[in-house]
């Protein structure tokens, strides 16, 4: 019972902090756009963790679907129609479908081989985005589009110039996706994912079609991260090839591991630390990444279950 109440209190605290962010972040030297970045990168890291932390499968190329999501949203706004919801749908579909197709080729690989194939495929997409400048703008990125005001029928919300309104739009998107992830993880499907993480051989001899299950989990996580990528394009009104690069994938994995990959909310904490440290240090030194790396090493050495895993353990003790 006390465990339940503690969980509820934790959840309430998380949502309260997120909902009130536009009011308290300026007081500690932050700004609203920082909150947008945290939410979007947290979504991406949570998508990676959906596979890594709950199925036990490490994809080191998930940025590919993140980047495709961003391009999908950009293309939709630029070439199809000036609609924010449509751009999210297009980005999600582009990332998710690409993931579903690649997933078919790699579900029999495991461990390092799985990670290597995901990197390789991500890099192929990166170079395509980089080279195909007539469509993607190449190294300069895709420009010339911007998120559109939301038309809800009875009212119109200006998420383009009103920063606070846009933050709440991103937060609603975040809440929606987090709810879907949480729902899947609490279902029989999610428990079977955890069974694969815990012991693949046992899961197989319980009669689970392990490869099919991993494929579906991989595909779902690509749809999730495609959505995060589409949202990222809306945050920046911009999409560029670096969003597909494996170093971006590495950042997502780092956020998940740093925050605590066995914990649903771990990647959110990881994203907060990553974005805040990056924002602060990058104004001080160009070598900010080496400090993030050092922090990562320290966390992995001293808190192998991540920051949230450590906090949870302390609270339980």
């Amino acid at each position, binding site marked *: 019972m006390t465990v339940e109440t503690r969980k509820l209190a934790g959840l309430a605290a998380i949502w309260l902090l997120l909902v009130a962010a536009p009011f308290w972040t300026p007081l500690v030297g932050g700004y609203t756009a920082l909150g947008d970045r945290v939410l979007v990168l947290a979504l991406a890291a949570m998508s990676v963790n959906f596979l890594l932390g709950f199925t036990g499968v490490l994809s080191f190329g998930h940025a590919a679907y993140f980047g495709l999501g961003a391009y999908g949203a950009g293309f939709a706004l630029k070439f199809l129609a000036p609609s924010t919801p449509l751009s999210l749908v297009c980005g999600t579909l582009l990332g998710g479908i690409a993931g579903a197709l690649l997933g078919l080729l790699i579900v029999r690989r495991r461990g390092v081989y799985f990670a290597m194939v995901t990197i390789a495929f991500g890099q192929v997409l990166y170079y395509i985005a980089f080279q195909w400048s007539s469509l993607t703008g190449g190294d300069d990125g895709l420009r010339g589009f911007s998120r559109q005001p939301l038309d809800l029928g009875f009212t119109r919300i200006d998420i383009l110039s009103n920063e606070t309104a846009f933050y709440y739009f991103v937060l609603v998107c975040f809440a929606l996706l987090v709810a879907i992830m949480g729902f899947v993880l609490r279902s*029989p499907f999610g428990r079977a994912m*955890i069974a694969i993480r815990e012991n693949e051989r046992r899961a197989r001899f319980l009669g689970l079609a392990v490869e099919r299950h991993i494929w579906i989990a991989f595909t779902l996580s690509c749809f999730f991260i495609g959505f995060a990528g589409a949202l990222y394009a809306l945050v920046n009104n911009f999409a560029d090839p670096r969003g597909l690069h494996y170093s971006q994938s590495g950042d997502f994995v780092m956020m998940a591991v740093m925050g605590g990959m066995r914990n649903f909310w771990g990647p959110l904490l990881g994203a907060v630390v990553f974005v805040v440290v990056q924002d602060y240090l990058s104004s001080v030194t160009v070598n900010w990444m080496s400090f993030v790396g050092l922090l990562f090493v320290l966390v992995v050495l001293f808190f192998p279950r991540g920051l949230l895993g450590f906090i949870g353990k302390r609270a339980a003790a």
Partner: protein
Amino acid sequence: MSGEGGASGASEAEPTGAILKVDSVSKRFGDLIAVRDVSLAVPRGELRAIIGPNGAGKTTFFNLLSGFFPPTSGRILFDGRDVTLVAAHRRVELGMARTFQITEIFPELPIHENLRIGAEIAAGYALRPWISRAERAAIQRKVEEILDIAGLASKAHRLVGQLAHGDQRIVEIATALTLQPRLLLLDEPTAGMGDQETYAVSKLVRALHRRGDLSIVLIEHDMRVVFNLAERITVLDQGRLLAEGAPAEIAANSAVQAAYLGEAA
């Protein structure tokens, strides 16, 4: 098809009631022939032990039965149906469950969660994003029933990774039971156990067998367990079938004694 089945078809559809029938099965790994032309039939409801010195091919044989890999030649029939090339997870759906020589469990989950996952997969819910209240309750009832049978009810909330080896073994067997198998394959269920744990596992296996319809095939090194439990014993040696019979016959069999003494020398 039935018209021209004729004489050869009749032998396949034999009404012997064998839950498991193995027809001259061999398994070759490169130059090594791990299982060589082994045939056996296990009647429905029997408790059969497979014994043999180290390297006799017992575990390989088990892996063939459970579909871990296919045989190089020969046929395996489960309840009259040819399953030689059927994938492992499909054999489970047909009613064949197994445990492993090295305990295979979900260590970071509680006992009841280990069983719940098995019960949900067996019920065909693995792909469902949602189950109804009634379905959830039915799963819960089944899990509780198996917890009672296995004597685990009082520990249901403990993490399996933190249990003693003997209890982990029992959890593994209990998890296999959630699949409601008709044939249970146990690979060295008492390996590495002390007397008390061995006794607990033997007691559980006998209780399961007495519950009725379940056929059990087990590999075992502990001869006390084998002669205590088995109705019939199959002896493998160097991949071949050496002998088969009731425990008393096997104990008196000179070829079996020679194989075991040969190993000791």
